[in-house]
């Protein structure tokens, strides 16, 4: 069974006034361990699709099955709980809690998961070390660069031990060096821990590194292909 499965999923906004089909009858399967990029021009439905997969939005039609659970009929509170235990999020604008240190930011989701304090601290340090920020664990977001903040966001996403990580334009606010470094990190985590990553992006640097590229056009999947560049690298 696929880790993520979308069956004829549509999302229509403003149904009663002027209906806009942001996602139109999409079928998609993503397997465990994939490093998939969802691409397409602005307004093609990338973010909506990512929101639907992440349980931040619910489909108007169709089914979304994640980890064998049909989340398309979940109520908002059930979705919050689902997201807490199954999905790691990395946002374009990092979105760390500004009053927390890097370590506290990473610990926070584990706190929501009711993980013990000692375990939280252990894992937070472990993941911050993995993203190369062991020496910045007590820095607040304001004291970190954009690239460093996004690394903390990745550590936060992974520390909750999710089934997969959803990243919405993770490199959009980063310079090329930071973006490259972040991609290396995520690719490394994908290889070493078989962690599934799903990105939405129009950053060519990210697209190049993706193993699979799903292209959206007007809410529909226009193309779904394995990345030839990656295939060459792999071979």
């Amino acid at each position, binding site marked *: 069974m696929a880790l993520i499965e979308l069956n004829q999923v549509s999302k229509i906004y403003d149904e009663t006034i002027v209906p806009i089909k942001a996602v139109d009858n999409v079928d998609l399967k993503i397997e465990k361990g994939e490093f998939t990029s969802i691409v397409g021009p602005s307004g093609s439905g990338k973010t909506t699709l990512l*929101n639907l997969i*992440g349980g*931040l*939005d619910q489909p108007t039609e169709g089914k979304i099955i994640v980890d064998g659970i049909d989340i398309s009929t979940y109520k*908002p*509170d059930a979705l*919050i*709980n689902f*997201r*807490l*235990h199954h999905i790691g*999020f990395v*946002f374009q*604008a990092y*979105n760390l*809690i*500004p*009053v*927390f240190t890097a370590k*506290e930011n990473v*610990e*926070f*989701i584990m*706190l*929501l*998961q009711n993980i013990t304090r000692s375990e939280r601290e252990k894992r937070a340090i472990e993941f911050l070390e993995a993203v190369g920020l062991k020496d910045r664990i007590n820095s607040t977001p304001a004291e970190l660069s954009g690239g460093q903040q996004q690394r903390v966001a990745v550590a*936060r996403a992974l520390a*909750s031990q999710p089934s997969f990580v959803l990243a919405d334009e993770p490199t959009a606010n980063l310079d090329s060096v930071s973006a490259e470094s972040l991609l290396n990190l995520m690719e490394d985590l994908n290889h070493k821990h078989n962690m599934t990553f799903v990105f939405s992006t129009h950053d060519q640097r990210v697209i190049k590194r993706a193993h699979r590229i799903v292209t959206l056009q007007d809410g529909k999947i226009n193309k779904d292909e394995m990345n030839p560049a990656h295939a060459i690298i792999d071979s």
Partner: protein
Amino acid sequence: MLLTLAWRNIWRNKKRSLIIITAIAVGLCCGLFASATMFGMWDSMINTTIDRDLGHFQIHSKDFEDEKLISDTIPNFENVISTIKKSKYVTGISSRIMIEGMASSASTSNGVRIIGINPANEKNVTSIYKQVVDGSYFTEDFKNQIVIGEKLADNLGLHIKSKIILSFQGTDGSIIYGAFRIAGIFKTESSVFDKSNVFVKENDLQNLLNSNMFSNEIVVRLTSVQVADSVYIPIKNQFSNLSVKNWGELAPELKLFNDMLMTQMNIFLGIILFALLFGITNTMLMSVMERVREFGVLMAVGMKRSRVFFMIMFETISLSFIGGIAGVILALIFIQYFGSVGINLSAFTEGLSQWSLGTRLYTSLPFSFYPPLVLMILVTAVLGAFYPAIKAIKLNPSNAIRTY
């Protein structure tokens, strides 16, 4: 950690948090101080009235209540007095002869209440002897001495050692005249009292009436107002054939004044709390609207709405609690200070004397008043935070994350 987050959120915008804390503190301080002023005023009126002539409770014959006739005496009054004396809370008992009559000088006359007393006993019950501003309180050695109020002396054009004629109806209905000489002139906080009450020795009245010892009124003074009921109720039960009334029953206008003050105080506090409610709502709403994206992220990553709600509530309650404590401390300082030095109200002497109030107002507020008010502040905080908190948890995480 959730509480840590809420606590640190408070101090993200120090200026705003300090403004709302100051608003709460000043509001509460003003509310408490105003209450202390009103309470002090009431306390002063009660104490003045108890101290001046009422005592803590009084005993009369039931008939005396209706027409206040000299013939309506307390049967076996000495027995009543000896029973009351047994209570450890009693500090003084005075037996009085009460007569409605006229006081006349050579030029004019005035209706007065003639109070026949034993000065030694009366000193243990009322403080008129301390308020003598001219002459002395029955220390002269001549007969038929009288102590009158300054206002009456002014009205009758009299002064110390002047002669004054008292006229009143005797027990047989005949009119009795008596010439008295002014030994002392007193001045209390109440000009009304000073104009309408004169004190003479009970022996002199008995001689004029040609009667034996009798009493129309027994006034009892206790250690404090708080113990009044523990003495007054048993006496009332024991002497059911007599009229036994406490100070509240004897001076219903004080009760009315108290009710009026309490209503005013509650309205005043209500206005302060209402203003605070809007202040808190405004501050927390601003705080929530500034953090829309953050709430979106928190809910996106799995923070339950109830926890977001609790976090906003905690932030508001913390702010209000700090403001509340600061307000109470400030109020305590002011109330203590003005409770000892008083507020000078000498500009309103004439008006205040109508209400039996002195020219210095000493603020006081019972400790029991503080906890409910702090609790009310916290309730206001919760009410104030309700709308912003609801607004936060109703956010759609996917939209909120994209808010800049």
